[in-house]
């Protein structure tokens, strides 16, 4: 912007016109002004002139530099420099052509990495709290049921204490061992209608049949069995154990919620709620399928090696066992429990209704779901491989969705 360069003479002409003084006097004035500035500046080291600005002499310390031509290092000696900072009124007047412009916020876009991280954390916390609520709900249910029951505590602690150690197979074998015996004894009473009565009858049977099935049980179970007469103290101990398990499983779930999902979430529910008490229901629901002792005789249920074949076969869902309409409280796992006797088998219901269910976690109320009739070899509660397979599928589906399924 050096289009025009005014000199003292130009300013003097202006002053002479404006103030009615001679041009010479004005020139003298301006020259004296600069001389005074000069003197004052070098005398004091700085100079403040109202409505013009501040001059100051600043010391610049010596520093090393490099000659860009030769790459040679040399020292710049310390020296003084004159700096000038204009006064505010001066700056404002000079900036007048641009004063109407104000800073504009282009966008309030935050750093993308930061953003997603925060969202992720929120999502996790959300899931985590949901999970905690569900576990609390299960505990509440359990506590509501417990006063009526006698023997239930003996089975639950075994499974729950095993659960954190991640040993699904032995647990399931134990379960099947006990349930087998129960069924054998309790077959006469399977006609009983309500679950409650079923449970009580069953527990009694279980109590009787406990000693034979003892061999593989853990020490904890022995202790619990001994404590059985002391109903109250045992009940308290159970709730404490459950609370401890919940507290332990929350952080574990939080950090490995995808990988350990099956072990931490599904297994307690299945073992707690389903394995023993609902056995008669399965018998009722599928009366044509005999239970294990006569298994070998029937044409439908194959032997152990053939069962594994059933598991590996691609599953088809042609026959319909029932149709369910989804309501607000409905869960695939509860349906699986109702029809197949174990919550884990929800994966098959999901597979059969994949066209209707986009996400097993979110199913809109009113969705009509086909409950498929499954090969009994696939949902054999006595075969640990069935449970393992269902677990594997569950893990696969939950991973696939990257969201846990709700029970």
């Amino acid at each position, binding site marked *: *912007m*050096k*289009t*025009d*360069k*005014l*000199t*003292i003479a130009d*300013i003097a002409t202006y*002053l002479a016109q*404006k*103030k009615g003084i001679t041009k010479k*006097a004005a020139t*003298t*004035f*301006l020259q*004296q*002004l*600069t*001389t*005074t*500035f*000069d003197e004052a500046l*070098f005398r*004091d080291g*700085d*100079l*403040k*002139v*109202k*409505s*013009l*600005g501040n*001059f*100051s*002499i600043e*010391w610049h310390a010596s520093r090393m530099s490099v000659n860009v031509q030769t790459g040679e290092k040399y020292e710049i000696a310390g*020296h*003084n420099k*004159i700096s*000038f900072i*204009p006064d505010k*009124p*001066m*700056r404002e*007047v*000079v*900036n*007048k*052509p*641009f004063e109407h412009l*104000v*800073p*504009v*916020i*282009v*966008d*309030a*876009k*935050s750093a993308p990495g930061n953003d997603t991280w925060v969202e992720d954390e929120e999502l996790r916390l959300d899931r985590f709290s949901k999970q905690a609520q569900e576990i609390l709900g299960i505990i509440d249910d359990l506590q509501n049921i417990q006063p009526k029951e006698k023997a239930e505590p003996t089975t639950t602690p075994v499974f729950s204490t095993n659960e954190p150690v991640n040993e699904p197979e032995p647990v399931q074998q134990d379960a099947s061992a006990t349930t087998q015996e129960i069924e054998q004894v309790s077959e006469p009473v399977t006609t009983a209608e309500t679950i409650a009565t079923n449970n009580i009858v069953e527990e009694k049977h279980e109590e009787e049949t406990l000693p034979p099935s003892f061999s593989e049980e853990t020490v904890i179970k022995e202790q619990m069995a001994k404590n059985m007469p002391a109903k109250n103290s045992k009940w308290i101990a159970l709730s404490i154990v459950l609370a401890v398990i919940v507290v332990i499983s929350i952080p574990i779930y939080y950090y490995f919620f995808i990988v350990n999902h099956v072990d931490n979430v599904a297994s307690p529910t299945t073992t707690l709620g389903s394995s023993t008490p609902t056995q008669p229901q399965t018998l009722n629901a599928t009366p044509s399928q005999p239970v294990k002792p006569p298994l070998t005789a029937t044409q439908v249920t194959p032997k152990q090696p053939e069962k594994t074949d059933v598991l590996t076969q691609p599953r088809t869902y042609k026959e319909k066992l029932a149709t369910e309409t989804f309501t607000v409280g409905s869960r695939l796992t509860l349906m699986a429990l109702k029809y197949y006797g174990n919550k884990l088998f929800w994966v098959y219901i999901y597979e059969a209704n994949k066209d209707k269910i986009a996400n097993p976690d979110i199913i809109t109320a009113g969705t009509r779901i086909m409950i498929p009739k499954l090969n009994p070899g696939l949902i054999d509660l006595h075969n640990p491989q069935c449970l393992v397979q269902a677990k594997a599928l569950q893990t696969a589906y939950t991973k696939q969705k990257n969201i846990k399924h709700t029970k």
Partner: protein
Amino acid sequence: MAMTHKELITDLSSKLPFSENEITDLLDTTFAKMAEEMSMGHSIYFQGFGTFEPHRKEERLTINPRNQIRTLIPPKQVVVFKPTQSLKDKAKEAHRYEN
């Protein structure tokens, strides 16, 4: 101790055939004229002292490092003083100022 505005006026009036009021008036007029000329893009050269130049600063984008908000800073015009070579040399040769 820096020279005050009043001292400047007194000093000038003692050396010039003007009263202090006249000096004040002349100074104000001079500086106003300078500012006005500079706002129009003209620079003012004081022989033996230096040049007052208007420099245009282009618009630029700033990013607030704390909240990443991007702001467009509009262009502006600032005053730059360029001392003459003689003044620069005088300053260089002078004793060390530390203030």
